[in-house]
């Protein structure tokens, strides 16, 4: 029971790191980025190449994956995405689905279609036994890293000048622009950072989620659930939603394996009917 809870929390934390960039881009520019998973996949493959082929230590591979994916995200944002912000939602959906298809085929071409594994250092394998509950060391590390990241994100958004600009831009873009905030630059930085986080999540999660070329499609629905259930106005909403989703998914797969992912889809639809703006969204009149 507690092991399920523990695994669920680890899984949820991972989903949060993967999806929080998406929730910010959606809230900030009202932009539906279905290609978010592609950046996570990029981070995962980056780590696989670095750690398995070149022999970079795992601890160094993770930050490199973050930086590389962030750079990639920034590049795409400035060259491609920037043209699509003002388009209709349909155009955004088409554009990002196109990117997903391209990334899936390109990774298949370069890396092959088989599942990839990151070589995890010996020290992180195995379990701790605490009060009779087995806790895998790797999952503990994930919870630790993701927990620290969450706190750091919350501090950045709540305390720094950049954070207040970001919040202002999310709340009302036009007024923020009128106050002299360069919303475009704020968005570019946020997009790159969010992509980097996704890349880090992909690198960390390669072991648990599995990494193959269809990754962006397989986990697309999970990211979208986190965002729609959690709402896009804060960072706590998606966080709680990810933890819930992680526990529900692990518990669902454990107790009713017959239904599999059916459990979380049902939860999502029920939540969307009950609270279309998200479970934890502030009800503001816009």
């Amino acid at each position, binding site marked *: 029971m507690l092991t399920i809870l523990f695994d669920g929390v680890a899984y949820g934390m991972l989903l949060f790191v993967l999806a929080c960039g998406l929730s910010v881009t959606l809230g900030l520019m009202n932009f539906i980025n279905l290609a978010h998973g592609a950046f996570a996949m990029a981070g995962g493959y980056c780590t696989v190449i670095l750690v398995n082929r070149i022999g970079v230590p795992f601890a160094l591979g993770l930050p490199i994956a973050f930086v590389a994916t962030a750079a990639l995200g920034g590049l795409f944002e400035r060259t491609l995405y920037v043209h699509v912000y003002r388009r209709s939602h349909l155009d955004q959906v088409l554009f990002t689905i*196109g990117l997903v298809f391209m990334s899936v085929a390109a990774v298949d071409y370069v890396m092959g279609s088989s599942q990839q594994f990151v070589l995890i250092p010996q020290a992180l394998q195995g379990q701790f036994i605490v009060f009779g509950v087995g806790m895998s060391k790797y999952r503990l590390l994930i919870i630790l890293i993701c927990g620290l990241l969450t706190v750091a994100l919350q501090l950045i958004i709540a305390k720094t000048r950049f954070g207040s600009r970001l919040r202002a831009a999310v709340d009302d873009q036009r007024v923020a622009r009128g106050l002299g905030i360069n919303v475009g630059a704020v968005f570019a930085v946020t997009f790159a950072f969010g992509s980097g986080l996704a890349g880090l999540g992909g690198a960390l999660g390669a072991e648990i989620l599995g990494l193959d070329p269809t990754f962006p499609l397989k986990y697309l629905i999970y990211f979208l659930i986190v965002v729609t259930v959690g709402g896009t106005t804060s960072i706590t909403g998606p966080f709680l939603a990810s933890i819930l989703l992680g526990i529900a998914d692990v518990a669902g797969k454990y107790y009713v394996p017959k239904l599999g992912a059916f459990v979380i889809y049902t939860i999502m639809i029920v939540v969307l009917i009950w609270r279309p703006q998200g479970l934890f969204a502030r009800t503001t009149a816009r």
Partner: protein
Amino acid sequence: MVPIAADVSAYLARRARWSPLEIAFWIFAFATIWLFPSKHLILTETAILALFAVSLDLILGYAGIISLGQAAFFGLAGYFSGLVAKYGIINEPVIALVFSGLVAAALGFVTSFLVLRGSDLTRLMVTLGVALMLGELANRFSNITGGADGLQGVAIAPVLGLFRFDLFGHTGYVYCLIVLFVSFVIARRIVYSPFGLSLRSLKGNPLRAAAIGIPVDRRLVAIYTVAAGFAGLAGALLTQTTAFCSLDVLSFERSADLLLVLIIGGTGYLYGGLIGAVIYKFLQDWIASLTPQYWQFWIGFVLVAIVLVGRERIEEWGRVTRAFIMRLGARMFARPTAAPDRP
């Protein structure tokens, strides 16, 4: 108020008239039966895709609902028609087809209430979620659906008890083409009716449409149900012509490809789905012969390119070409212009 009503009905009647170009299009479509007998298998797929795309055009092009889950109805009806044929519940394909359409429409009716709520993103999620749920169910209940191996042992009886499905797909193609044509005529009738006009108005501005007395929600439910039925017909046709049904009828890729088909052809004039299906199948065939494994990359590339160039611009080119062909057609089929029928 009578003169306005008369004006409106005259306007509608004028718009709904079959143009020579449309007639030529359908004559050519039926001529392909004799023109390309060796290509009937791929033409069958094209006709099914075209019908599927028309169903999406009804909700996207006319009601403005973005859906990523049209495959739900396609797949449900596909499995339904496969199961009734396998267990001999309804043997005659045409009756099975109609029932499959009705089953899909029933699902459309039930899920339409979910689609009414919320923004584009919520709609996207709900439609996608419904399709994924069905996919997961079909995967889990493999004792009924065959799971990942697909539904096997489906034997389709001859159409109307007369025409047996043959190996080369001749019967299948004629059957699909006729179903496509009949469905198209019905869809055309729907969108040129006052009902269709009210759909257009609520796509343009739901608030104003409601203000002039159009029951927005009820119209959306109605068109979503009808479109689901059409998607169901397409799904049932696929199962009947291939005598097989696998999990990929419910996949996300099917819904996403469908969007591409419709975007290539253009939304909101029904022929977009048909033209898009022809171009898409042609492209897919061509790219797959170049790079069998990685054709998805180029499909994605086309999507990205379309958006970056701008759909409006492409539709503008399409309009110019269409106007040109129309003028050409009008000159060829020159007929005396009807005098204005005012007393």
